[in-house]
């Protein structure tokens, strides 16, 4: 929120101040009487079909201007026209109009044109047309109201559901295609495919007269290998196909794929956790059958299904065999719970659902953080406990947890999608800001204030992000997360109409001051009655100063008041601060363990440094100290003599010393020259390369001829083993070049 000066009158009587107390709001809110004129995160567009799924209207308009408006003064008119259109859309949405961006655009553009009195195709018309062409997204436009959290969450869930459905259909259709191919191939081998009629159908009518299908059938039917095992396989594949095609977890990709009479896909959005858990139990058999069909399909496609091994496995397969990886293929359930409309008992079921590890996404929408001022919260309200529900859910360790107010939903949209995509359970705790007893403040401001005041801090916990809290927990979306309370610059006019400015912390006490229920715990004091012993609430909370704690508020006439707050509010604020500091520790901010460790290490280091400090040496001592000679560099290691490459001849020489014939098997090119001469003397090893299998299985002549014909000269005949072999002298001479 931008800060700027606000003209606040300083003179006000105490009585008038008391009368206005019910309409007072934190001083930092004074500028934001109406949000229509401002550009901020709302209205939001729930974008259809593409990422990101949530975009603020301002972001879309800025994107259009970036792409269409020339820089500088040339594009100024276009910018003004588009911003006027944005303002018109914002006004309509704030009045409760609900429609798609495209429809709102057309209506508002027509309205602006009519109001301007311009003729068609004039500058306004042309500019808006040009901008319209650059609009490449569409979706429902919503304002920040009591319905916003549910609308946003349902939209995000649907986006993830659609993406998962795409991936699911691709996987399942791939399996269906492969299984259909297998059945087709099996059919082609069957008797039914070899009848004359079937063959005629497969050839087609164009060439039918060229074939004698009866003769063809008789030829093909010879030796057809058909076994009962093939029948069993076909039946199994048919069953699996039936299960895969009739799944009800996702709708078909195209509306025309739905066959008449086909049951609708399952619904996965529920109004209570009990309904969601019951639905899961009812569908369990279907889930088990589907998962079994998936696994069997994969085995069949890999041609690895063995009935003797796998049939018993699948007969015993039940829900206890379902794994998280298999369940991740299927859609998650979404349960939307709401403060004031949901039975308290269902919040207990919500916890049970989260603890179960099932893929259930739970939205808990809170419309009232602080609760009534009576001692006990009402039966249907979560009371102050609702703000801690998310903290409790983190303790389960397996659930994705996101807490944010409505004002920040767009900023945390990536985390929203991550939570919806998380394989296990997820909790989304959202404060809508639509507090009935603070109706004079817009829900957006109340929601933002709750984040600022640490009454409803924004955090995310992703158990899959890493092994430790540093990886999993994130507090960074909170303003000035390292401080107890965020501080902002407040500018005002004093009684002399001079501009004044001071840094003001926005605390829990400032937040509750906007709620009419807490008006009786606040006492507005006009400027004339301010005293020195009044201290800002932030300082009071730290017990830094004694005195009456106050928060700065603005009345209905924008007069500045110090609203003295009761001890009850101070105690509540301290509890809030305590909870905030706990979250900071989890996020590694002001972590008490780390601080103590650092202090201990620092003390130890200082003690060590102090102990190691030598006494100042005398001049004589310095002269007597032996001169330190620089260490002599080590003699360079003798360079390793480069290894002389061993020639083949050396290898040959070493081997030839034994006079035996040998082959350099590793260099054999499998050319069959030697094996064709004598396949008992020469044989191939497991790599199809030749070696001397039996030196006595052939003659020396054969060895020499093999050596001569070897393409790569790797056969070395050695010396003859049989001295009586004829023509040895000639053969030895011929063998000489190869030895």
């Amino acid at each position, binding site marked *: 929120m931008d800060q700027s000066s606000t003209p606040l009158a300083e003179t006000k009587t105490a009585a008038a101040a008391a009368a206005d107390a019910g309409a007072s709001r934190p001083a930092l809110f004074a500028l934001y009487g109406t949000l229509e004129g401002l550009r901020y995160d709302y209205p939001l567009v729930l974008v259809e079909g593409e990422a990101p799924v949530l975009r603020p209207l301002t972001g879309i308009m800025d994107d259009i201007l970036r792409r269409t408006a020339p820089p500088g003064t040339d594009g100024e008119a276009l910018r003004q026209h588009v911003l006027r259109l944005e303002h018109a859309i914002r006004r309509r949405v704030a009045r409760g109009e609900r429609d798609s961006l495209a429809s709102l655009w057309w209506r508002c553009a027509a309205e602006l044109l009519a109001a301007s009195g311009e003729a068609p195709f004039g500058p306004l018309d042309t500019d808006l047309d040009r901008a319209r062409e650059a609009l490449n997204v569409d979706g429902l436009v919503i304002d920040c109201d009591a319905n916003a959290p549910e609308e946003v969450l349902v939209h995000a869930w649907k986006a993830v559901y659609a993406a998962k459905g795409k991936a699911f259909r691709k996987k399942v259709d791939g399996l269906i295609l492969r299984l259909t191919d297998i059945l087709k191939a099996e059919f082609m081998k069957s008797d039914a495919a070899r009848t004359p009629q079937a063959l005629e159908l497969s050839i087609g009518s164009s060439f039918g007269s060229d074939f004698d299908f009866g003769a063809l059938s008789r030829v093909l039917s010879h030796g057809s290998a058909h076994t009962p095992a093939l029948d069993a396989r076909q039946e199994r594949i048919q069953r699996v196909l039936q299960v895969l095609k009739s799944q009800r977890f996702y709708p078909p990709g195209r509306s025309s794929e739905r066959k008449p009479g086909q049951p609708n896909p399952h619904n996965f959005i529920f109004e209570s956790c009990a309904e969601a858990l019951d639905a899961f139990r009812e569908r369990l058999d279907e889930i088990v059958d589907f998962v079994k069909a998936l696994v069997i399909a994969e085995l069949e496609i890999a041609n*690895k299904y063995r009935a003797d091994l796998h049939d018993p496995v699948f007969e015993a397969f039940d829900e206890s065999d379902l794994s998280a990886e298999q369940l991740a293929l299927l859609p998650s359930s979404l349960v939307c719970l709401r403060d004031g409309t949901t039975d308290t008992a269902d919040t207990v079921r919500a916890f049970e659902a989260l603890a179960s590890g099932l893929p259930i996404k739970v939205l808990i929408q809170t419309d009232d953080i602080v609760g009534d001022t009576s001692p006990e919260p009402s039966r249907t309200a979560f009371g102050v406990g609702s703000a801690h529900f998310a903290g409790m859910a983190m303790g389960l360790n397996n659930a994705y947890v996101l807490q944010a107010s409505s004002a920040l939903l767009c900023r945390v949209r990536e985390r929203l999608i991550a939570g919806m995509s998380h394989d296990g359970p997820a909790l989304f705790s959202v404060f809508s800001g639509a507090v009935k007893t603070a109706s004079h403040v817009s829900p957006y401001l109340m929601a933002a204030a709750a984040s600022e005041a640490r009454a409803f801090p924004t955090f995310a916990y992703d158990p899959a992000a890493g092994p430790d809290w540093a990886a999993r927990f994130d507090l960074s979306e909170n303003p000035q997360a390292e401080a107890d309370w965020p501080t902002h610059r407040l500018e005002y006019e004093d009684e002399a109409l001079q501009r004044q400015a001071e840094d003001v912390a926005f605390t829990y006490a400032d937040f509750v001051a906007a709620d009419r229920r807490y008006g009786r715990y606040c006492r507005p004091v006009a400027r004339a009655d301010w005293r020195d012993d009044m201290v800002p609430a932030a300082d009071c909370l730290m017990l830094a100063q004694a005195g009456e704690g106050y928060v700065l508020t603005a009345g209905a006439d924008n007069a500045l008041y110090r609203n003295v707050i009761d001890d009850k509010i101070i105690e509540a604020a301290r509890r809030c601060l305590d909870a905030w500091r706990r979250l900071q520790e989890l996020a590694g901010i002001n972590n008490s363990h780390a601080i103590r460790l650092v202090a201990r290490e620092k003390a130890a280091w200082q003690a060590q440094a102090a102990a190691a400090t030598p006494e100042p040496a005398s001049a004589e001592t310095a002269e007597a100290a032996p001169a330190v000679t620089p260490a002599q560099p080590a003699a360079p290691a003798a360079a390793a003599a480069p290894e002389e490459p061993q020639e083949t001849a050396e290898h040959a020489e070493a081997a030839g010393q034994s006079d035996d014939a040998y082959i350099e098997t590793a260099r054999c*090119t499998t050319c069959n020259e030697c094996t064709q001469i004598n396949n008992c003397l020469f044989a191939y090893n497991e*790599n*199809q390369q030749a070696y001397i299998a039996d030196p006595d299985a052939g003659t020396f002549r054969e060895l020499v001829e093999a050596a001569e014909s070897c393409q*790569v000269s790797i056969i070395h005949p050695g010396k003859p083993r049989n001295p009586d072999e004829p023509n040895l002298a000639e053969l030895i001479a011929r063998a000489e070049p190869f030895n």
Partner: protein
Amino acid sequence: MTATMTQCLLRLVEEHHTLADYQGDVVPRWCAGCGDNAILAAMQRLCRDEQLPPEKTVFVSGIGCSSRLPHYMHAYGFHGVHGRALPVAEGVRLRRPDLHIFVTTGDGDCCSIGAAHWIHAIRYNMNMTVLLHDNQIYGLTKKQVSPTSPRGLKSNTTPRGAYLNPLNPLTVTLGVSNVSFVAQAVDWIPDLLYDIIAEAHRHHGLGFVRILQRCPEFMDHRFDEAVRDPSKTRILVHGDGLRLKPELSRIYHNKEVHDPLDMPRALAIAALEDEIPVGILYKNPAVPCYEDVREAERPNTPDLIRTVLDEEFDKVTIWPDEQEPPAAAE
């Protein structure tokens, strides 16, 4: 990461294939000394070492001595018409993304009649391994010059000697856009032949390997000098390419450390005339494969095809008055 249920159940039926499981029933009819034998042996070793299921492996060939290889492998094979091995293999790849595809083609089959398919197959970069058995002659038809025959070679069709300079398959392939893997091997160094084919197989994309191959019948002594003198062979080594075993290092001293991503240097090496470069000239895993780029959102099951066709026909169907046309498809 824990194994999926399917992976666990697959392990129950793990089969181990030996080299004999990849040997076809037909004994190779190549000439003794033919380099095709070495290539066949390397292929069978690769299948065994990678444990490629025979029913998931297919060899596609055209016409020529090289193209008899599918008959000698115990796997699926398609012995097609002259010059058309590559388009058939591309069709197999599109329809069956789960298969291991090898293309065996010759210098005539690939570089002559199949040249157009060759260029576009490189460009499409579909995932397969292409082995060009280059013996620089038309051998099956008994000695006619091919596009890679050396100038001056006398043959049945060039009794006065070949008139033209030969085509260099390496420089041509490297010059095609989207090329992702080019290597050269020789059949007389079986270890390197195996390593190069294995690298081509592991590469995701079209792995093109030109194999200089001896033809003892019609091109005898063509590569004698290179076989006998290791210095005539330049081995390309690199951390991302080939690594030379110690026993080969002792023989082949003519080495160059060549980065497979260095295209200009690859082109220069490919153009060498006095030496035979052996190794991986170019390897770029980042080039996308056509089948990945064109992967449909959903596989085209028979039901989906029928649905889409019905949608299109419904648009132009004249519906009887009493019948409601179906709602427009999303």
